[in-house]
C-alpha cells in the first residue's frame, strides 16, 4: 500500500454534487482513489450512493464539481472534457461496470463466449481463435466451466451470470471497476463464492474498485476504505476496519449496530 | 428441353389487360360512377383522402374505382399523384373553434354550452343487416342545418387552468413536414402528429386499444369530438393578406388524459389530439390516444409499452410503405435464395460427415 501513496491517484472526485430540481442526489462528495485500492460506498437506499456511481461512470453529468481520471498515458483528465468517443472507449477498455442485475450488463441473446469476446472485438481483435481462447481463459478464471462457452446466458444461474458479467468486464484488463450491489439478489452461499472470487481477482489484477453496497459485511470483505453516505452527503470516511470497528458518527454506529451477528 | 424464360414484357401486358377486365366485371351491370362512390361510399372516400394526405373527393373516388375497392391501393394512387403536384405554400392553421359543426359530443360533461349534438352517427344503431337496402332504399328527408360555431370544451377547462395549455410555437418556427424532410428521432410533436394523421387507421386503432388495456395507460376521457366544415385560408405573398381557398370537412378529437404536476406546477389534465379529413372518428380518436402515449418522454413518464415507443410507432404507421415492403416478397429473390441453398447444403453435408465419422468411431470401438 505504501507504494501507491507515491503515485498519482487514479480517480479523483472534487466536490461532486447532483440535484434533480429540488431533489438532492448527492452533495459535495470528494475523494481520491489510488491504483489497487478498493473503496466501498455504503448507505441505505436514498443515500445518494448510486447517484455517485453514475456520476463517476459519466452516465449522468454533475450539477457541480468534477471527476478526474488518470489515463493510461499518465495524464489526468477531467472526464467532462472528454468527447463522447473517448468516453465510450474508456468505458469499453479501461473501466468495468458490474450491474446489480447481470441482465443489464450482458447481451442475453448471444453466447457467453461472444459476451466475453465483444470488448476485444470492439477494440480491433480479428482472430476468432484468439478471441475464443481469451474468452475461454476468462471463463476459467471466474470459475465457469469453459465447456459452456457457447451457451446463452439465459441458461446460466444467477451466480454464473454475475460471474460472466465480471469476465466480460475484465477481458480488456481495466484499471477501474465500478460495482453496484454486485451480490444483491443472490443466494447467501452464492454470494460468498462471488465475493471470494472478486476479492481474489481485485488483488491479483491490482484493480481499483468503487463498490456501492448497503451490506456492511460485503464492504468489510472487499474494501480497504469506506465512505458512509446519508441523505446525499458523506458523513464518515476512513479505513474500512477502523470505521466499522470504531464508528464515530451516531448514524454509522446505528448502521453497524444493526448488522445481525452471524 | 429447357429454354430460358423470356417474354416478361408480354406477361406484364397481359396481366394489365386481365386486371382491367376484372375491374369492370360483368358488362351487363351498370358501371360505377364517381358520383356514386363520392355520395354513397363517403366514408371510404374520407379514409382515402386522409391517409392519401390529399383533400379531393373526386380524385379519391377515382382512386377507389381504379383500385377495385382496395383502400390501401387507392391511398397509394392518391399519394403518388400528390407527389407530382406543385406546392405553393402552407395554409394558415385551421381554426376548428370556428367550425360549422354538424356533430359534437363530449363524454366528460353531461351537458355543455351548445349541447350534445349527435349528428349522423352509427353509434346507437343496432347492427342488424337491413334488407331494405338491397334495392333502392327509401330516401330520408334532407338533413338539418349545421349548428354553427360552438365553444370548445377544452377551452372551458383551460380557462380554469385545469388542463395543460396547448404548447404554442414561436412565430418564426418552421412547421416540420414529413413530405419534405426525412423523419429523424427524437421527433417533435408536429412531425409526430403529421405522421399519425397519415398513418394507417388499423395500426393506430390497435395501438390506441392497447393503451386502454394497460400497455401504457393514460386514463383517457373524450373531452370533445366534433365534425364539420372549416375554412382553409392562405396568405399569398403577392397580396399580403388572408384569402379563403374553400372549405373542408374534418373530424377533431380532443382527449383529456391523466393529470400530472411537478415540483413547480400544480397538477393538471394532459392532452391528446387527433385530426382527420372527412368524417373519421375512429381515426381521430385512435390518433389522440397514440399522440398522448407518445408524449410519455416529454411528460417524464416511463416508456414501457409499444404505443409509447416513438421509433416503433412512427416507423410503422405508413401503410403505403408497409404494403410495399411486405408485398415486395413477391418479387424474384432467387439469387439470394440460391446463395442460402448453397450454405445450407454445405452445412448439411458437414453434419452428415460428422455423424458418419462419429458412428464409424463407435463401430471401431465396438
Amino acid at each position, binding site marked *: 500500500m505504501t507504494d501507491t501513496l507515491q503515485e498519482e491517484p487514479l480517480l479523483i472526485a472534487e466536490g461532486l454534487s447532483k440535484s434533480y430540481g429540488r431533489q438532492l442526489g448527492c452533495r459535495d462528495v470528494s475523494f481520491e482513489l489510488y491504483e489497487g485500492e478498493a473503496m466501498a460506498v455504503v448507505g441505505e437506499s436514498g443515500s445518494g450512493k448510486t447517484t455517485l456511481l453514475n456520476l463517476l461512470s459519466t452516465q449522468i453529468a454533475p450539477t457541480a464539481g468534477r471527476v478526474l481520471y488518470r489515463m493510461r498515458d499518465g495524464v489526468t483528465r477531467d472526464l467532462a472534457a472528454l468527447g463522447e*468517443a473517448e468516453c*465510450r472507449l474508456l468505458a*469499453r477498455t479501461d473501466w468495468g461496470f458490474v450491474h446489480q442485475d447481470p441482465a443489464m450488463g450482458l*447481451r442475453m441473446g448471444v*453466447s457467453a*463466449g*461472444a459476451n466475453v*469476446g*465483444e*470488448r476485444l*472485438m*470492439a*477494440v480491433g481483435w*480479428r*482472430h*476468432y481463435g484468439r*478471441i475464443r481462447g481469451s474468452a475461454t481463459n476468462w471463463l476459467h478464471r471466474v470459475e465457469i466451466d469453459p465447456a459452456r*462457452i*457457447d451457451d446463452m446466458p439465459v441458461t446460466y444461474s444467477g451466480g454464473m451470470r454475475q460471474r460472466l458479467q465480471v469476465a466480460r468486464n475484465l477481458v480488456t484488463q481495466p484499471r477501474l471497476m465500478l460495482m453496484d450491489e454486485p451480490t444483491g439478489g443472490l443466494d447467501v452461499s452464492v454470494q460468498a463464492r462471488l465475493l471470494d472470487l472478486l476479492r481474489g481477482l481485485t488483488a491479483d489484477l491490482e484493480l481499483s474498485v468503487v463498490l456501492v453496497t448497503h451490506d456492511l459485511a460485503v464492504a468489510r470483505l472487499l474494501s480497504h476504505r469506506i465512505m458512509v453516505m446519508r441523505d446525499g452527503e458523506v458523513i464518515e470516511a476512513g479505513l474500512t476496519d477502523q470505521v466499522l470497528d470504531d464508528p464515530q458518527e451516531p448514524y454509522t454506529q446505528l448502521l453497524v449496530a444493526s448488522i445481525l451477528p452471524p | *428441353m*429447357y*429454354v430460358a*424464360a*423470356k*417474354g*416478361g*414484357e408480354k406477361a*406484364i401486358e397481359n396481366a394489365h389487360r386481365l386486371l382491367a377486365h376484372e375491374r369492370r366485371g360483368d358488362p351487363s351491370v351498370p358501371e360505377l360512377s364517381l358520383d356514386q362512390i363520392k355520395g354513397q361510399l363517403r366514408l371510404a372516400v374520407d379514409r382515402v383522402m386522409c391517409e392519401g394526405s390529399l383533400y379531393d373527393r*373526386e380524385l379519391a373516388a*377515382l382512386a377507389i374505382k381504379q383500385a377495385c375497392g382496395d383502400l390501401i391501393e387507392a391511398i*397509394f394512387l392518391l399519394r403518388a*399523384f*400528390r*407527389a*407530382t403536384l*406543385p406546392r405553393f405554400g402552407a395554409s394558415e392553421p385551421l381554426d376548428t373553434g370556428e367550425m360549422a359543426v354538424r356533430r359534437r359530443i363530449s363524454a366528460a360533461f353531461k351537458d355543455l354550452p351548445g349541447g350534445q349534438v349527435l349528428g349522423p352517427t352509427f353509434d346507437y344503431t343496432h347492427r342488424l343487416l337491413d334488407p331494405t337496402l338491397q334495392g333502392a332504399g327509401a330516401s330520408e328527408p334532407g338533413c338539418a342545418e349545421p349548428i354553427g360555431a360552438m365553444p370548445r370544451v377544452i377551452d372551458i377547462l383551460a380557462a380554469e387552468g385545469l388542463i395543460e395549455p396547448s404548447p404554442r410555437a414561436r412565430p418564426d418556427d418552421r412547421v416540420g413536414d414529413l413530405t419534405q424532410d*426525412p*423523419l*429523424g428521432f*427524437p421527433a417533435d410533436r408536429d412531425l409526430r402528429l403529421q405522421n399519425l394523421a397519415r398513418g394507417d387507421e388499423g395500426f393506430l386503432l390497435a395501438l390506441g386499444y392497447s393503451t386502454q388495456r394497460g400497455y401504457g395507460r393514460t386514463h383517457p376521457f373524450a373531452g370533445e369530438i366534433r365534425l364539420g366544415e372549416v375554412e382553409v385560408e392562405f396568405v399569398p405573398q403577392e397580396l399580403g393578406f388572408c384569402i379563403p381557398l374553400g372549405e373542408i370537412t374534418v373530424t377533431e378529437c380532443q382527449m383529456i388524459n391523466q393529470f400530472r404536476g411537478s415540483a413547480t406546477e400544480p397538477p393538471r389534465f394532459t392532452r391528446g389530439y387527433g385530426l382527420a379529413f372527412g368524417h373519421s372518428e375512429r381515426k381521430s380518436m385512435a390518433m389522440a390516444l397514440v399522440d398522448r402515449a407518445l408524449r410519455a418522454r416529454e411528460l417524464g413518464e416511463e416508456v414501457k409499452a409499444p404505443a409509447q415507443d416513438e*421509433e416503433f410507432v412512427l416507423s410503422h404507421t405508413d401503410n*403505403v*410503405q408497409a*404494403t*410495399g*415492403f411486405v*408485398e*415486395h416478397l413477391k*418479387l*424474384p*429473390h*432467387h*439469387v*439470394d435464395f*440460391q*446463395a*442460402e441453398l*448453397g*450454405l445450407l447444403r454445405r*452445412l448439411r453435408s458437414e453434419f452428415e460427415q460428422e455423424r458418419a465419422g462419429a458412428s464409424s468411431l463407435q463401430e471401431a470401438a465396438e
Partner: protein
Amino acid sequence: MNAPVYNFAYLDEQTKRMIRRAILKAVAIPGYQVPFASREMPMPYGWGTGGVQVTASILGPDDVLKVIDQGSDDTTNAVSIRNFFIKTAGVRTTTSTGDATVIQTRHRIPEAALGEHQILVFQVPIPEPLRFLEPRETETRRMHALADYGLMHVKLYEDIARHGHIATTYAYPVKVDGRYVMDPSPTPKFDNPKMSNCAALQLFGAGREKRVYAIPPHTGVESLDFEDHPFERYRLDGTCAFCGANDSFLDEVITDDRGGRMFVCSDTDYCETRRSQSGAAETRAGASVPR
C-alpha cells in the same frame, strides 16, 4: 381534373436537386448513409423506388439505360422499371452491359467489369447493416459516428460458434475506405469483391428507408471477416448449361419434378455475349451437373 404533366424522368427539378445534393454528400463520405426526403413514386415502396429516384436524378437525355433484376434484363420488375423510364424520359435502353452509361440493378453486380464512364445504381431494401442486431436508429447512428462496430463482429463470431462458418450469404457487410461499415444490398457475397476499386461510380438508393449512400470510383472495399476465418467468395460449383462459363454466378433451374435441375448464368447479358462470341447457339442440356 388537371391531367398531370411530368418532367423528364418523372421527378420535378426541385426533387432532383435535393437528391443530387444527397448523392454528392454520399460520394464525399464513402459508405455513409445520407438521409433524403424520398418521394412517393408510381411503384410501391420495396419495389425499387430508391434506385428509381437515384436514376431519375442522374439521368440525362444522352444516357443509355440498362435495368436488371436478379442479373437479368427480362425479369418482370426490370421490365417494368425500364418501361417507366422509356415512358418518362424517352432515353435509349439496352441489355448490353458494355453499352450502358447507367445500370440500375437489383441483387446482382454484372459479371463484366465496369468502366469510368458508367454508373451502377443499386436498389436497397434495408440500408442499415446493423439493423437486425440493433433495431433503434438512434443507436445505430451513434455506432457509425463512433466507428463502434464491435456488435457486427459479435454476430460473425456467433455464426462461427454456431455453424462453423459465417452464415451470411448475401447482403454481406463491408467496410468502405477503411471507415464506414455498409450493407451492399442483397447481392450474393460472390459479388462483393467487384465493389472494390471499381472504375464506375456505385450509388445505393433506399426509398422506403430514405437513405442514399455511395462508393466513389477506385475506392477500397473489404468484406468483414476474421483472420482465421477469411471471407469466402461462395460460388456454386458448376458451369452454365448455355455458355459453359465456370466463373459466373449460376441460377438453379428445376426442370422436372424428379429432382432434375440445370444451371445457367444469372447475368443474362454475360451469357448471351459469351454465346454469340463462341458461336454456340444450342443449349447443351445435361452438361452442367454440379459435383
